[in-house]
């Protein structure tokens, strides 16, 4: 076995272990210190892992089903992939499918997020358990139920509008997240700016990077607060980060992003949580939450139940 292969195997072992609760951090430190290449291997594996997560839904069939698209004609050159690592013929179909949306395309996610390329080169990462419909001229109308992270190329010639609940977001040239819950819609801007509007609002509300808009649909009330840009859509990186967020909202997010059911009694619903939860293991995330909040925790057939501290 070559040194490179041995390093890659060890790094892969550490990557798997570091997602769990009983990681040997001391041993990992020693392993990293032993050779500079160890760090690089671990980083690259983590990036490969990210990429796999981002593409998991569209690849799900690919693992078991052998590729059926390999025989289509070459339609495009691959200037940088001169090593021949990629069969050029594989490429065209996926591209064609992505760039020619029907009059209306709907994307629905279950347990994993899905990365969606829009016709103008923008991308959307649709969160787990969410639905998005793209329609209109050049895909200019997007309807969202659930949550998504948008990375939108600003094009003044095109009026893109994203609707979530009663809120419409326009005038977009930026990266931002929209989360829609039964009673409210949250917009968090990581970069650039957007404009948010609802019938109940007197005028469109401009939002710049580092701002968060909370729109309470029942009350028709919009609240703007600050958000750390790096924390926007942190679920993309296996993390949920909060600053003074009501516990019931944290529980809803855990259901969506980590797939765990957590029941919060009414008495605790408005308790505020600040901190980060790692969601690669949903059950561990719930335990972390209970510990950080010093709450009791019980599990039964219906899922987890948070309780006042005993």
């Amino acid at each position, binding site marked *: 076995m070559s040194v490179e*292969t041995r390093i*890659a*195997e060890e790094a*892969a*072992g550490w*990557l798997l272990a570091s997602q769990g609760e009983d*990681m040997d951090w001391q041993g*990992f*430190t020693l392993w*990293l*210190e032993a050779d500079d290449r160890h*760090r690089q*291997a671990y*980083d*690259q*594996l*983590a*990036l*490969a*892992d990210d990429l796999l997560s981002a*593409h*998991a839904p569209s*690849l799900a069939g*690919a*693992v078991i089903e*052998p*590729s059926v698209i390999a025989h289509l004609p070459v*339609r*495009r*050159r691959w*200037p*940088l*992939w001169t*090593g021949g*690592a990629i069969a050029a013929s*594989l490429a065209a179909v*996926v*591209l064609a499918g*992505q760039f*020619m949306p029907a009059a209306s395309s709907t994307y629905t996610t279950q347990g*994993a997020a899905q*990365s969606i390329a829009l016709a*103008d*080169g923008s991308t959307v990462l649709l969160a787990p358990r969410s639905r998005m419909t793209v329609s209109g001229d*050049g895909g200019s109308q997007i309807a969202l139920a659930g949550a998504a992270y948008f*990375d939108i*190329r600003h094009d003044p010639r095109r009026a893109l509008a994203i609707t979530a609940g009663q809120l419409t977001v326009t005038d977009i040239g930026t990266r931002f997240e929209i989360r829609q819950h039964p009673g409210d819609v949250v917009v968090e801007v990581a970069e650039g700016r957007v404009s948010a509007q609802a019938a109940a609002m007197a005028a469109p509300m401009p939002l710049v990077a580092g701002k968060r808009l909370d729109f309470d649909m029942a009350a028709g009330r919009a609240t703007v607060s600050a958000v750390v840009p*790096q924390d926007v859509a942190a679920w993309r*990186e296996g993390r949920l980060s909060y*600053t*003074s967020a009501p516990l019931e909202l944290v529980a809803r997010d855990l259901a969506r992003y980590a*797939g765990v059911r957590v029941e919060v009694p009414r008495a605790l619903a408005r308790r505020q949580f*600040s*901190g*980060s939860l790692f969601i690669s293991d949903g059950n561990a995330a719930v*335990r*972390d939450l209970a*510990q*950080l*909040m010093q709450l009791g925790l019980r599990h039964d057939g219906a899922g987890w139940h948070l309780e006042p501290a005993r």
Partner: protein
Amino acid sequence: MVETIEQGAAGGLAALVGVYRADLLAFLRARCGNAAEAEDVLQDMWLKLSDHATGGASGPVQNPRSYLFRTANNLVLDRVRARQRAMVRDHSWLVEGTVASGAAVMEDRPDPSIRADEALLVAEERQVLHRALDTLPPGARRALQLHRFDGHGQAEVAAIMGISRSGVEKHLATAMRHLRQALMDCGYFGPAASSGQGQGNTADER
């Protein structure tokens, strides 16, 4: 089971950063490969946890040491990801020149003047992964399918495949190693990490 730390403005977990400072710093130095960045990350972490302390996250945690190391590792990964994103954007690992040369793609587009690289990126990443998955050894492929795509825990995968837990870990490690190699061969991690363009591949995996 864990000592209760005084709560207050910089209490709780932020105070524990002080308790484990030496270990955390040694870990971060090795993790970042750079002493100055390690200090930065530790500082970031302390600030984050201090902020959180005022919002209620100041209580004792059952395994605070593990939580702090995971947090530190995640903060480093955030930086690694940011650098990767910047690298992909700047060097556009695969699409240099395609806007001019990719005639077939341009025909399909509603407005040919709009740059295509980000959408291409998504499609091309998927192609690299797709091909890498196609060529995985059968055991690794099945373990990955069950664990990552079907959502089974590692213990369940072991039961389904009739192998040990460590056998599952080996399969998953093999799968991840192959995916990384495929990305490396395409220059995803930047020119420095690949074998040089037009030169064939870094060999030993093939």
